[in-house]
Every structure is written in structure tokens, then in C-alpha cells.
């Protein structure tokens, strides 16, 4: 029995290890490719044999010295993600909290609307939203990218779940002390919701960082592009921009992976929100 268990453990562990290696392999090859001369990479693509003698940091030197608009894209991505996180967390937490703690007319109706929006894909609203952005003269601005992400139904849903687990008697005693309802939220309850803020900051930050289609639609000038949109412009069949494309891709993923290594728990919580039924 024991020998059989040991054999099974070896087989199962080996199988999972193989799949984990396959999962990490593309990212590993991306890093390795970023060290290869772009002309050679362009010619051969990613190959099984690695030209170790040709590896160098030239692509990175290039990207840090004269990389066209790459750093504008980076800056835009940082600004848009940061603004999305702050605004979306602020608004969504207010809404989710109110839906959880207050009994008011329309509460249930609003919650149903939240679930409804959750089910309607953004892509369907894309054309009319684009028209709206033209009307508001917001095309080619950060605001056009951020506005539709400002109140995220998934975040409202998550904050509502989280806030319904908070102790209500704390609110009562704060009221007795003359604290306003806003004070109760901002000074007492919101700090208690901190773990949920972390998970949602990661979810919203990541989806904003990696968002592609909407920024592609509303951003026009190359200097306003975000990283995914900017990098996608380099996907030409001629490969004349492979140096920026590959090293730039690594630099796009790197901060996210580093954050993941430190805040794994919140990443996992944030990215699997919908599965938490309660």
C-alpha cells in the first residue's frame, strides 16, 4: 500500500510539474529572447537551440536610451491604472457597502442591476460608448479610458459580500457617539474592509494594465497609447521593432509578476472573485 502511494505521488507530482513548466515556458522564452539580437530573433523566431554566444543586453540599452514612445506608453499605463484603481475602489466600495448595510427602498433592485451589468459584455456597448465619448469630446484622453471602468459591478458585488460580514453594532455605537453615516463609512467601516480593497485594487489594476480593446478604440495619438496598445502597433510582419517589442514586453510583465510574488494571496482572491458564493 505504502509503495503504491509513493509511486502514485511520484507520478502525480511529475505530471503537475511538467504542466507547470509548460505554463512558465513562454514567459521564460520571452525573457531569453529579449537577450537575443533582434535581427536574429526576427529571422529565426524562438527556436529550441539557443544561441548562447550571441546573448547580450543591447535591447535593454536601446529601450532605456532611445525607445521612441515606449516610456510614454509606460507612463500612460501607470497613470490610467492608478486613476482607475483609486476611483473604482472609492466609488464601488461606497455602493457595495450601502447595499450591504442599509435597508432602503430599491436596494434589491439596484443589486439586480449590478448582476445584470455583470452579465452584459462590455464589447456590446463599445460602439455607442465610443459615440458618447466623441460627443463628450473625450477621445484621446485618459478620462475616456477610465470613465467606463469607474464603477465596476464585479467590485460592487465583492464589496457588498465583504461588508455584509462586518459587525453592525460598531455602526450603532458610532451613531450614539454622534458620528455621521459618512464618518462611519470612511473612518470605521472602510478601514475594516482593507483586505477587500487590496484584492479589488489588484483586480482592477491588472485589468486596467492589460486592457486592450477599449483603449485601442478611444486613444488616437501614439504618445497617448497604453502599453498593450502601443506594443500591438509593433506587431508588423517586417519585425523592424523587435528590440522594443520584446524587451518592452518583459518590462510590461515584470512589475506585475514581482507584485504577485509579494501579494499572492490578494491576487488569488481578486482574480477569483466570482467563484466566492455567499
Amino acid at each position: 500500500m505504502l509503495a503504491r502511494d509513493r509511486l502514485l505521488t511520484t507520478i502525480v507530482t511529475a505530471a503537475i510539474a511538467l504542466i507547470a513548466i509548460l505554463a512558465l515556458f513562454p514567459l521564460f522564452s520571452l525573457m531569453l529572447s529579449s537577450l537575443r539580437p533582434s535581427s536574429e530573433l526576427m529571422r529565426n523566431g524562438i527556436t529550441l537551440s539557443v544561441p548562447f554566444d550571441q546573448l547580450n543586453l543591447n535591447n535593454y540599452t536601446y529601450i532605456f536610451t532611445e525607445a521612441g514612445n515606449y516610456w510614454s506608453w509606460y507612463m500612460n499605463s501607470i497613470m490610467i491604472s492608478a486613476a482607475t484603481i483609486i476611483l473604482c475602489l472609492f466609488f464601488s466600495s461606497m455602493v457595495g457597502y450601502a447595499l450591504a448595510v442599509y435597508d432602503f427602498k430599491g436596494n434589491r433592485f439596484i443589486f439586480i442591476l449590478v448582476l445584470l451589468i455583470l452579465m452584459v459584455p462590455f464589447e456590446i456597448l463599445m460602439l455607442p460608448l465610443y459615440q458618447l465619448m466623441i460627443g463628450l469630446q473625450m477621445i484621446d484622453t485618459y478620462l475616456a479610458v477610465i470613465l467606463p471602468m469607474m464603477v465596476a459591478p464585479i467590485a460592487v458585488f465583492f464589496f457588498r459580500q465583504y461588508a455584509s460580514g462586518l459587525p453592525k453594532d460598531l455602526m450603532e455605537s458610532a451613531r450614539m457617539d454622534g458620528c455621521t453615516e459618512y464618518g462611519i463609512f470612511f473612518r470605521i467601516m472602510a478601514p475594516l474592509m482593507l483586505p477587500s480593497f487590496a484584492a479589488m485594487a489588484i483586480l482592477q489594476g491588472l485589468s486596467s494594465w492589460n486592457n486592450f480593446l477599449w483603449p485601442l478604440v478611444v486613444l488616437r495619438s501614439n504618445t497617448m497609447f497604453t502599453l498593450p496598445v502601443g506594443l500591438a502597433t509593433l506587431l508588423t510582419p517586417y519585425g523592424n521593432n523587435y528590440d522594443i517589442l520584446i524587451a518592452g514586453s518583459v518590462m510590461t510583465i515584470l512589475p506585475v509578476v514581482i507584485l504577485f510574488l509579494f501579494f499572492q494571496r490578494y491576487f488569488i482572491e481578486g482574480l477569483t472573485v466570482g467563484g466566492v458564493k455567499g
Partner: protein
Amino acid sequence: MIERAASSTESRRSKWSVKDFFLSKKVVPYVFVSPFIISFLLLFLYPLISGVVMSFQTILPGQTTFIGMSNYERIFNPTFFKALSNTTVYVILTTVILTILPMVLATMLNSKFVRFSNIFRASLFIPALTSTIVAGVVFRLMFGESESSLANTVVGFFGVEPLEWKFGAATGMFLMVLLCTWKWLGVNILYFMAGLANVPKELYEAAEMDGAGILNKFRHITLPMLKPITVYVVTITIIAGFRMYEESYVFWPEGSPGNIGLTIVGYIYQQGFRMNDLGFGAAIGVVLMLIIFIISILQLSLSGALKKGE
């Protein structure tokens, strides 16, 4: 502190009533939910309605004309059916793969037969952090046309001639499904692991006493207990599949040969933005909305959620 607040408000009696309004118990909840109401009206309901209206129009700068049903009459053309069939095949493949594979892997990771399960779980999750565009860059390079590309070297081991991956219908679909599977496998594993954590251990112990083997336990305990989470994973995978665009864009930014990679959202983008035919694009959007609506209803009734009134 309270007294001071009270006296200061009394001294500014004119402002007091407005403040009082916003502080009243009745109004406070509505202030809290107002961001949602505004964004619902402006960024959801309004575009939804105007999308339907647009689908009956031709829209040119400064000139909008109602043209009745003609956008819808134009929709049912070979290109649309190509996009629809591509998307449907993609949805079916990704749903089957991204349900069965993560379920099996989660069961393995959850069993006592695996070492270092946390490290594996984290490694499998990391692809979900990457943008599809960036991931697509690597996949393009791995699946190059040249004889020496990684993918062609690998298939060469099995005696297959070098393939032109991005230029064939089957291999093109394979690339999109592979990219999606690679990216979302780890997330779906986590869903199933969360589902497995809710299965009572006693069930397995009881089954073991009855002499049930591993496969029997999986079939008679694990599978039925995972039903709710499976329904959820299937739902999100189907909906994500119908929304798919990036996986196609990254392989064919300028459009695919013979439309082998065209998806419904890709068709909306092509017609609405590239061809500047906003009305027609909106009509495709309405059709997509109907498709997703029907699937959602089917899903809800199959899972019994409608009966319970959830």
C-alpha cells in the same frame, strides 16, 4: 465636539438645511449608491438604448438617417457566418478544455499525492497576469513559419512537416485556443480548488471504508460535489469566449487570411471602426447581445438558479 458642531451649524442656518438633507437617514443610502446610478444611466442604459437605435441607422459625420431593418438584412452574409462559426468553435473548444483540464488538475493538486502543491499552483497562475497581447508576442515567435521555429521543431520529432501555423484554419484556431488555455488554466484550477475545499472529508473516508478506489471516489463524490462551481466556470468561459478578440488580434492585427481568425467582436470592430459603418457594427452588437442573452437564460435554467429565484 458635538456641541461645537451643533453651534457652528446653527450659526450658518442657511446652509443647515442642505446639510441636514444629506445627513438624513433616508437620503444617506442614496448618496452612497449614486455613483452606481449615474454610471448605470450614463454608461450602461444610455449606450444600450442608443446601440439599438444606431442599429437602425446609417451614421455618417453630421448626417444620421434611419434605414429600418436594412442593417439586419445585411448581417446574414458569409463573413458574419464565418465569424459566428469561428467564435462558436472557439467557445466549444475552450469551454471543454478549460473545464475538464482544470478540474482534473485541481483534484490532483488537492490530493495527498502531490508535493510542493503551493509552488505549482502559483506557477500555473502566473500566465493569468500577462496581457494577451504580450503573451501573443511570444506565441507568434514560438509558432513561426520557419523550419527552425520551436513549434516546427517539436512537430518534426513526430515526423510532421513544418506547418504555416498562422495561415491555416485549423492551426490558426489551435493557436487561439492554446493562448486562451495557457492564460486561464491556473485561474480555473483555483476555482475548482475552492470548490474542492467545500467537499466534506467524511464523504471520502466513508467511501474508503466501503473500499472505493480513486476513480470511483472522483466519479461518485468529487464530480457531483463540484457541480455548482462547474456551472459557474462553464458560464464564464462561454461568455468570455463570445467576447474574444485579443487572441485573434495578436496573431492577425491586419485581418486574417480568409478570415480564419475573425470573431464576432472582431467583426464589430472591423465594420464599426475600420469601415466606419457604425450602424452596421451596432446591429452586429445587438445580435451578439441576443446570443449571450439566450445562452445566459439556458445556463440559468439548466443550473436550476431560476427556480430558486436567485
